[in-house]
């Protein structure tokens, strides 16, 4: 085998990575991907949960962890939940200035069975995120949508509606809420706290050949 790759970064040298000469033509390997979950975040106590985006993960516990890293790192957060993408029921998208509820056929489906709780989310316009509007109790998703229209249908505009069975959601436990309560005095995490421009300018003044940089 060839000698390990050399780098100026000592950590890379310690990995002992060898250069691999690729063969001319090889079959493209299939994608080995995790299933997706959607993450929802609450910025402040009492604020509505908002959809923030998807994560790939092998299960909901890992999805929760990844969502915490990906979506709550750079903003204030007091709560987070994840749900498998395919557990979300979505209506078609409606026009920008109206309510999708009004365009859906009324369904008079008669469903018996035990009611469960469904969380309802609205998208106010394209390009922003769905936000939580409330929950309804219904024996099926279709009945839940009808109830959602009765309860939250006055809002305008509503471009798209999501209905999610509450039982499928991985919420933040009350014990876990503390994970966003971190030390405040860590300015060194932000590039902006390193105020060096004046010192760079001073240094350049003393070194005229550096002026052009």
């Amino acid at each position: 085998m060839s000698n390990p790759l050399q780098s100026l970064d000592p950590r890379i040298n310690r990995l002992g990575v060898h250069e691999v000469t690729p063969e001319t033509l090889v079959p493209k390997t299939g994608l080995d991907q995790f299933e997706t979950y959607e993450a929802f975040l609450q910025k402040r106590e009492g604020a509505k949960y908002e959809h923030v985006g998807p994560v790939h993960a092998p299960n909901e516990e890992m999805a929760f962890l990844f969502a915490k890293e990906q979506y709550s790192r750079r903003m204030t957060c007091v709560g987070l939940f994840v749900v498998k993408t395919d557990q979300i029921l979505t209506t078609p998208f409606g026009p920008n200035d109206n309510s999708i509820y009004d365009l859906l056929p009324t369904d008079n489906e008669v469903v018996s069975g035990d009611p469960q709780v469904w969380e309802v989310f609205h998208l106010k316009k394209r390009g922003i995120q769905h936000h939580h509007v409330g929950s309804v109790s219904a024996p099926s998703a279709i009945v839940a949508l009808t109830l959602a229209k009765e309860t939250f249908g006055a809002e305008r505009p509503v471009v798209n509606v999501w209905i999610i069975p509450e039982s499928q959601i991985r919420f933040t436990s009350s014990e876990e809420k503390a994970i966003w309560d971190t030390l405040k005095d860590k300015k060194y995490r932000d590039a902006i706290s390193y105020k060096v421009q004046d010192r760079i300018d001073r240094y350049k003044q003393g070194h005229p050949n550096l002026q052009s940089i």
Partner: protein
Amino acid sequence: MKPEALKELIYKMADDLLILGHRNSEWTGIGPLLEEDIAFSSMAQDKVGQAQNLYQILHSLGESEPDIVAFTRNAPQFHNCQLVELPIGEYDFSLVRHFLFDTADALRWEMLTISSYEPLAQVAKKFQGEIRYHVLHAKTWITQLGSATEESISRLQLALNYAFPFALGIFESSPYEKEIIAEGYFGGEELLKEKWMEKIKSVLNETQLILPDEKIITPVLGGRVGIHTEHLQPLLDEMTEVVALEPHAEW
């Protein structure tokens, strides 16, 4: 007040956090997947931040400035357990170490919330949020990989077998153990170890991993009194490389 006993207690906690924080930061940019890269880097910063808080307390007890204490000592003057100085190895080892150490760390800080030394009790409350996440992170990964595939299970098992004797070194008893307990600074290493064994067993029980039998294992001791592996000094040299170039630079 028993300042020598207090300092001994705080030095070893601070050094553990600084050294493990530095080790974990070595994953920055080369983590096995993006979220893990971020998670390890973020937890590394938390640990270094916590170490800084503790060096600050030591400073108030008459020790040098935090930066001096962190960046100008050599290996024999460090009180961290040997577990935290071991190279990051492969991700399986880093993960198992993170689980073993952080579980002990969380329990230690929980015990310290009732410390009779007020500054320690205060930071113990301040650190709760960060530590709770570190433990959640460790537990989630160990539970996942500890029962996922043959490869993930055997990798974690080998890492666990290797790390466990070093992990027992976390609880190396202090020469001031009696005073530390009697003064109410901290409940003591022996009690901490009992709680820790119970906790890691309960997590490992949810996996296919087997905890090595404590009775037939010799703990790796010495870290608390400055005896270290050959890995610590090179770590310190690397960590202080930039400071050493320009010791009086302003940042």
